[in-house]
């Protein structure tokens, strides 16, 4: 029975359990999907299945969810089968994004599992005619003090778990798995050649396809000589719809060759409309301005005024494996295996694209390469759907080529920011103003117009009007409001609807740029106040958990005893992601070669507070990864283009961090807070890393660089000026 049938047959019961009025919200995603058996089912033979609407992206979600469920159900992790994002099976939890999975799904499953266990205990109490206090849950059985025991499977009859969740749960406080560095369940297959990714899916009779993407945005296919390609051995079909062009072949290498041959025989009309100077262009475009903090803040007082402006270029997600999907169209129904971050929103978008009812589309998440936000995963799923419809009954696998991924994925937006503050006579901040200019940070699907293929069709779909993501999470203005207690704080978000280049969510969204800007600026203020950067931060912070990570990182780094050597420097930065997720503080030491502008990160020390740490090693892995990825963004990365095309089309034209620039050491210290809410971690390190790096660079050289990336080329120019 799939989920739809299940709900359809159980519908009457849902009504009978609905409470007249809900005073209290349900925990996490239970609020949206309150039935316990949407999350947890127990079969008659005792097998337990847990369902999450979130997806494994390599962040360790599966392991953490299993730890939570197993602890609350008092079973071993191996006793649980976990089903992740699938439109036929799991709750709709939207996107796996924004470091929200533990908060949304982890919290829902924590509570659903606790409540399921309590229901099983109550049921056993009835059967055994014992008070529930005499019973305990152990390894899939309810055990009585007198030695009698009943397996979970024998207790769950009928619709026992088909009930609405309660707002409060009796959480089992014994932590067998939570808080432990449990090894990730997905790693063994990944290091032994197991089928681990959608890229590895091989269905019977599956064929391969490639897309001939237009050379640039808005290019129209003027003419195509496809006959020689159609006659190539192994080519099954060339599919064209307007300027959307793909080729299906029996073998993958044939599909690649056929795609290249088609590309060589295609002529395009290309508009020349990409801007020469992106920052001047963005600054000149109309913006929707919102004061997101301090609308009634007083004007800045007299004192020392410090001002600075910062820029961030377009940057790519750059998964090492280009996007891939497999689709099969049969009898008017479509199945898509996809590494999209949101199987339900993708289903809606593909339904509109194909003119199909969503119920006829089944999207199944399988892991992809990386992710780091809204990349081409949804686009390639749409490509696969269009090609599969042209070849009914046959599964079609499509993978993008490297140049497709670099040039067509939605980039992290270029941004500008300006900060202004006044220091009083004591060297404290008496007023703070900050402004940020940005395009949207989410053009995720939900609608067909968000899929790259849809723009090229004979009857194209237009992208939806871009919208800002509101506070408190924010998009371009994420973390634009500092956590510091600056009097008269005034923050403005200039949201620019018109997008010169395709953009969407890149890990951390605006937080990366805003934290880079604000943390650079705070160091500039500290320098003006002749204060130590760590002390300066602490004296403007009340939040004890913020202070704790800062003090911890500073202590482990040896901040107080640091002796500056020629060419070396230290830097510090802090942020609480979204001002409501994990706290992270980072201290860093760098060495700079003045002649070449070559920058080396020697060591990094981070302290992080993610609330109750379900898997401390998972948190360390995410923070380490965030640090290394941010070092790459911050020192190497900027998308290049001319007036027609993206010219960063591979790792040669868009270099990223290699092992030669990996720090000597990276230490991550996790402050565990048992009983506290889970706080998302996946995006907590990017902004502080950039800030700490810029500050270390300034300390090493005496020169403040406010434009990203802090590349050797830029540093050489700046340092020799």
């Amino acid at each position: 029975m799939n989920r739809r049938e299940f709900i359809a047959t159980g519908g009457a019961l849902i009504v009978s359990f609905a409470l007249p009025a809900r005073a209290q919200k349900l925990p996490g995603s239970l609020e949206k999907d309150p039935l316990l058996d949407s999350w947890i089912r127990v079969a008659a033979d005792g097998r337990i299945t847990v369902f999450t609407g979130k997806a494994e992206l390599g962040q360790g979600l599966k392991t953490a969810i299993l730890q939570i469920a197993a602890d609350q159900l008092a079973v071993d992790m191996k006793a649980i089968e976990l089903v992740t994002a699938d439109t036929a099976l799991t709750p709709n939890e939207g996107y796996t994004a924004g470091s929200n999975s533990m908060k949304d799904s982890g919290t829902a499953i924590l509570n659903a599992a606790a409540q399921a266990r309590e229901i099983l205990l109550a049921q056993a109490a009835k059967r055994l005619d014992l008070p529930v206090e005499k019973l305990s849950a152990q390894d899939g059985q309810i055990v009585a003090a007198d030695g009698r025991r009943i397996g979970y499977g024998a207790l769950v009859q009928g619709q026992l778990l088909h009930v609405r969740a309660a707002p409060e749960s009796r959480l089992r406080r014994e932590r067998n798995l939570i808080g432990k560095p449990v090894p990730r369940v997905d790693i063994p297959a990944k290091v032994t050649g197991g089928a681990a990714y959608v890229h590895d899916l091989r269905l019977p009779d599956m064929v391969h396809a490639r897309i001939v993407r237009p050379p640039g945005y808005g290019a129209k296919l003027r003419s195509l000589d496809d006959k020689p390609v159609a006659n190539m051995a192994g080519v099954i079909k060339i599919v064209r719809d307007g300027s959307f062009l793909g080729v299906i072949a029996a073998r993958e290498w044939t599909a690649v060759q056929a795609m290249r041959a088609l590309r060589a025989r295609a002529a395009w009309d290309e508009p020349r409309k990409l801007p020469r100077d992106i920052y001047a262009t963005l600054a000149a475009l109309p913006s929707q301005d919102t004061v997101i903090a301090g609308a009634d803040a007083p004007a800045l007082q007299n004192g020392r005024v410090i001002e600075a402006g910062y820029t961030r270029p377009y940057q790519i997600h750059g998964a090492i494996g280009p996007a891939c999907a497999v689709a099969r169209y049969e009898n008017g129904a479509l199945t898509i295996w996809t590494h999209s971050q949101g199987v339900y929103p993708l289903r809606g978008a593909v339904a509109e694209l194909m003119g199909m009812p969503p119920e006829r589309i089944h999207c199944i998440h399988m892991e992809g390469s990386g992710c780091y936000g809204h990349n081409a995963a949804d686009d390639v799923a749409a490509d696969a759907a269009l090609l599969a419809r042209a070849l009914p009954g046959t599964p079609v696998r499509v993978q993008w080529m490297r140049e497709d991924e670099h040039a067509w994925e939605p980039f992290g937006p270029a941004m500008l920011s300006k900060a202004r503050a006044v220091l009083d006579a004591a060297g404290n901040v008496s007023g703070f103003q900050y402004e940020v200019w940005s395009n949207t940070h989410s053009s995720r699907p939900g609608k067909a117009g968000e899929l790259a293929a849809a723009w090229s069709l004979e009857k194209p779909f237009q992208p939806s009007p871009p919208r800002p993501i509101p506070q408190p999470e924010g998009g371009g203005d994420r973390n634009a409001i500092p956590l510091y207690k600056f009097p008269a704080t005034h923050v403005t978000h200039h949201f620019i609807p018109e997008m010169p280049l395709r953009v969407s969510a890149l890990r951390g969204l605006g937080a990366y740029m805003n934290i880079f800007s604000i943390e650079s600026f705070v160091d500039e203020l500290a320098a003006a106040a002749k204060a130590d950067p760590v002390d300066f931060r602490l004296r403007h912070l009340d939040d004890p958990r913020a202070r704790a990570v800062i003090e911890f990182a500073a202590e482990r780094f040896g901040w107080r005893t640091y002796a500056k050597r020629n060419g070396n420097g230290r830097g510090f930065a802090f942020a609480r992601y979204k001002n409501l997720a994990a706290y992270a503080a980072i201290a860093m030491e760098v060495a700079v070669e003045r002649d070449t502008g070559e920058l080396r990160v020697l060591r990094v020390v981070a302290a992080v507070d993610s609330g109750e740490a379900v898997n401390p090693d998972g948190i360390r892995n995410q923070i380490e990864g965030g640090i290394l990825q941010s070092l790459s963004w911050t020192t190497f990365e900027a998308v290049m283009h001319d007036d027609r095309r993206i010219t960063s089309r591979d790792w040669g034209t868009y270099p990223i961090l290699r092992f030669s620039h990996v720090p000597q050491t990276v230490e991550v210290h996790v402050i565990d807070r048992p009983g506290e809410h889970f706080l998302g971690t996946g995006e907590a390190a990017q902004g502080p890393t950039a800030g700490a790096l810029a500050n270390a660079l300034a300390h090493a050289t005496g020169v403040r660089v406010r434009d990203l990336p802090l590349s050797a080329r830029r540093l050489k120019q700046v340092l020799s000026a």
Partner: protein
Amino acid sequence: MKLDVNGLVVDVTAEPTTPLLYVLRDELGLNAAKFGCGLGQCGACTVLADGEAIFSCLTPISVLEGRRIRTVEGLGTAQKPGPMQRAFIDMQAAQCGYCIPGMMVRAQALLERKPDASEADIRGALQPNLCRCGTHMRIVRAAVRAGELMRGKS
């Protein structure tokens, strides 16, 4: 033509100009070597040929006849992981994991050539391979650990 892959000699039907990667993945059903760039810039496709790390996305099978090809599948199994695999599991050296098999075989090539390779040697050897999740520190630790396991240190 015939290819020697992980100790088995197999008949393959692909054209001799086909890059090895497509034969490994599509004809032999091996998952570990991955398509990353098709340009020799990222190393996701790295496999061993007579102990030497090669980009399988660029190397046509025509030049590989008679050479001993090894992939991560040849280093052990999930049930009986070899030292390199054991080390990557012990160090939890993966996030998305897509680049990891390429890292593993490149480290394997180094350690077979130079069993006492230092951490600096390992970092140097891994220069052709890209990781986007930022797992570099763990990858280095795992390769160091693999060297220890291979030298018989437990």
